[in-house]
C-alpha cells in the first residue's frame, strides 16, 4: 500500500505571534510539523506496517522547513518531495492544493493521500479537500478512526460531526484528512533520526511539477490577504462572588445569556 502524506511546517502552537505592519513577525518563532499532519503521517505508517508499500511525504514550504520534514522522515516516511521553490510560497489554499496535486500526479501509483484536517497557522481546513477535487478523488475529512481493506481497495472512516459521528465508506485511492484522536503519533527514534538524513530528499521547482509561475504561490492565488490583525486583548477575568451553588447558578446564567456559549 503506497501512501502520500502532505506535511506542512507551522509555527509552534506555543509561539507568541506578533503582528507588525500587517505581517506576522517571523523572527524568534519556533517551527514544528503541523500537529494534524503528524496524525496523518502516523496513520500512513500504521497501514504501511500492516500492508507494506511506501510512504512518501510531499511538503510545500520554504527551505527553512527542512528540519520539520526531516522529523517526518525520522518518524518513518521513506522519501520526501519538497516544493521549496520561491514561486510556490505564500499561496492561498487553492494555489497550494494545485501545486501539491501537480506534484502528486507525478509520483505514480498510490492508494491513499493523508492530510491533516487543517494547518494550525492559517486554519483554513481547505487544502486536503481541494486536493481531492483537483485530483478527482473521493475524500473524507476530519477522520477519527479508519479501517482500510487493501485487497478490496476500500476504506471505512469515522468522522466527527456536530453532536455525533458519521461512518463513511469510500473506494481507494482517496484523500483522508486526519482529526486528533485518530492515533498517537510516534516519537522519532534516534536511529530514525540518523536514517532520515540518508533518505531521498528531493527539492522540486516549477518545471518538476509542470506548472507555470503564475499558477502557483501568491500569483496563482484566488484570494488576497488584505490585513492581518492580532486578536483583541483578552479582557480581565471576572470573579463571581457568593455561596457555591448560588455562584454556579450565576455562572451558568452568564455563560448562557451573556457569553452565549452554552
Amino acid at each position, binding site marked *: 500500500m503506497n501512501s502520500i502524506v502532505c506535511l506542512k511546517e507551522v509555527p509552534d502552537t506555543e509561539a507568541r505571534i506578533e503582528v507588525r505592519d500587517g505581517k506576522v513577525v517571523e523572527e524568534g518563532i519556533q517551527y514544528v510539523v503541523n500537529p494534524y499532519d503528524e496524525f496523518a503521517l502516523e496513520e500512513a505508517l500504521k497501514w504501511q506496517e500492516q500492508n507494506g508499500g511506501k510512504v512518501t511525504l510531499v511538503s510545500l514550504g520554504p527551505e527553512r522547513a527542512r528540519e520539520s520534514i526531516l522529523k517526518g522522515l525520522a518518524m518513518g516516511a521513506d522519501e520526501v518531495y519538497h516544493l521549496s521553490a520561491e514561486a510556490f510560497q505564500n499561496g492561498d489554499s487553492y494555489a497550494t492544493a494545485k501545486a501539491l496535486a501537480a506534484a502528486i500526479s507525478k509520483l505514480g501509483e498510490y492508494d491513499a493521500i493523508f492530510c491533516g484536517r487543517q494547518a494550525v497557522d492559517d486554519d483554513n481546513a481547505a487544502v486536503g479537500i481541494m486536493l481531492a477535487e483537483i485530483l478527482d478523488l473521493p475524500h473524507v475529512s476530519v477522520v477519527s478512526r479508519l479501517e482500510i481493506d487493501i485487497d478490496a481497495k476500500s476504506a471505512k472512516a469515522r468522522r466527527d460531526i456536530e453532536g455525533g459521528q458519521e461512518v463513511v465508506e469510500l473506494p481507494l485511492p482517496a484523500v483522508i484528512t486526519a482529526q486528533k484522536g485518530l492515533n498517537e503519533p510516534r516519537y522519532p*527514534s534516534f536511529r530514525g533520526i540518523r536514517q532520515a538524513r540518508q533518505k531521498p530528499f528531493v527539492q522540486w521547482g516549477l518545471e518538476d511539477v509542470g506548472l507555470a509561475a503564475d499558477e502557483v504561490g501568491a500569483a496563482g492565488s484566488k484570494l488576497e490577504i488584505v490585513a492581518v490583525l492580532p486578536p483583541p486583548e483578552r479582557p480581565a477575568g471576572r470573579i463571581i462572588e457568593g455561596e457555591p451553588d448560588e455562584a454556579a447558578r450565576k455562572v451558568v446564567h452568564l455563560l448562557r445569556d451573556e457569553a452565549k456559549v452554552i
Partner: protein
Amino acid sequence: MDFELNEEQRLVRDMVRDFAEKEIAPSAAAVDKAAEFPAENIRKMADLGLMGLPYPEEYGGGGGDYSSYAIAVEEIARACGSTALIYAAHVSLGCGPIYNFGTEQQRQTWLPRLCSGEGLGAFGLTEPEAGSDAGSTRTTAVRDGDHYVLNGSKMWITSGAIADVVTCTAKTDPGAGTGGISCFLVPGGTPGFVPGKNEPKMGLKGSITSALSLENCRLPADHLLGEEGEGFKQMLITLDAGRISIGAMALGLAQAAFEEATRYSKERVQFGEPIAKFQAIQWMIADMATEIDAARLMIYRAAAMKDAGVRFTKQAAMAKLFASEVAERAAFKAIQIHGGYGYSQEYPVERIYRDQRLCTIGEGTSEIQRLVIARQVLGKL
C-alpha cells in the same frame, strides 16, 4: 567559531525534549514521592534507541556522538532527575568501560544487551574507605586457576543492585598502589555478589543506590576488563566522560528550575504587580539565565572536544564543577522566587533542589574537580 548544534543534534534535542515533556515529566513527582524506579521511562527510552546512543551500531548502539548524548541527558533531567541519573550512569559508567576497554568478546557479550536497554550497566568504584580517594580500593581479586576470587564491598552504586553487569575495581596486586588496581565485569546474580538495600536518599529517589558486597565471588578469568593493573587508568578515563553527563544532568535541572521560576514570577501578584516586575526578582532571573547559558556552553564544548578526539579532562572537570554549582544556585533562587510555595512539595522546585544536590558530589566532588583542574593548570609542582 560555531556555537550552533548541528542538524542531527537539533533533531535529537527536539525529539528528546518533546518525548521527555510528554512522557517523563508527568510522572516525575510521583517517582520522587514513591521512591519508585521508573521502569516505564527506561523502557520507553530504550524503544527510542537512547540507551546506547553514543556507541557504534555494530554493538547495538545508536552510532551517535557524545554531544547528542549529553543533550539527551540534559533534556531528560529537565523532566526528571531520577530518570536522568539512571540514564547517565548506565550510558557513561555502565557501557563506557566495556566499550572503551573490553575485549571484542566482552563487548559482544554485554553491549548489545545494554545498548538496547534490555539490561542496565553499573560501575562499582566507591567503597567505604575509598570515596574521593578512589585509589585506596580495599576490594581484592585473587587469581585462582582460571578464575579470580573477589572480596570486598562497594558503596553508593547507582543501579548496582539491579544491573546486568557491574564493572568493579579490585586490587590484583595489593603492593602496587594504584597500579595494582584492575576492573572486573561482575554479572548480576553471580554467587557471592550480594547487593544491599536501596539507600534512602535526599533526592533522585527513583534511582536505586546500593552497597554491594563481594564474598568469595568467583569470576572466570575472562571477566577481567582489559589487562591487570589498568583499572585505575580505566576509571579515570571513564570518569572524564561521565563528568560531562553529570554536568549535563545539572544543566537540565538548572534549566527546569529556571523555567519554573520565570513562569511563577509572571503569575504571582504581590503589591498589585506580578513579582517579575520587581528588580530584585529580575536580577535573580538574569543571573540564572546567564549562568545557565555559560554552563551550557561549557558542557557542549567539553562534549564537542570528546567527539573531536582531543584531550578534554580539564574542560570536563570545569564544566561539571561549574554546571553543578550553577544548578545549586539556580534551584536556590527558584525556591526563593516561589517564596513559601517553593518550600512546598506541591511545586516542582522543591524536588529539583533535592535532585540537583548530588551533582556537586557524584563522579568527583567539587573539591576533587578543583583538584583535577588545578593539576591541569599548574602542572607538576
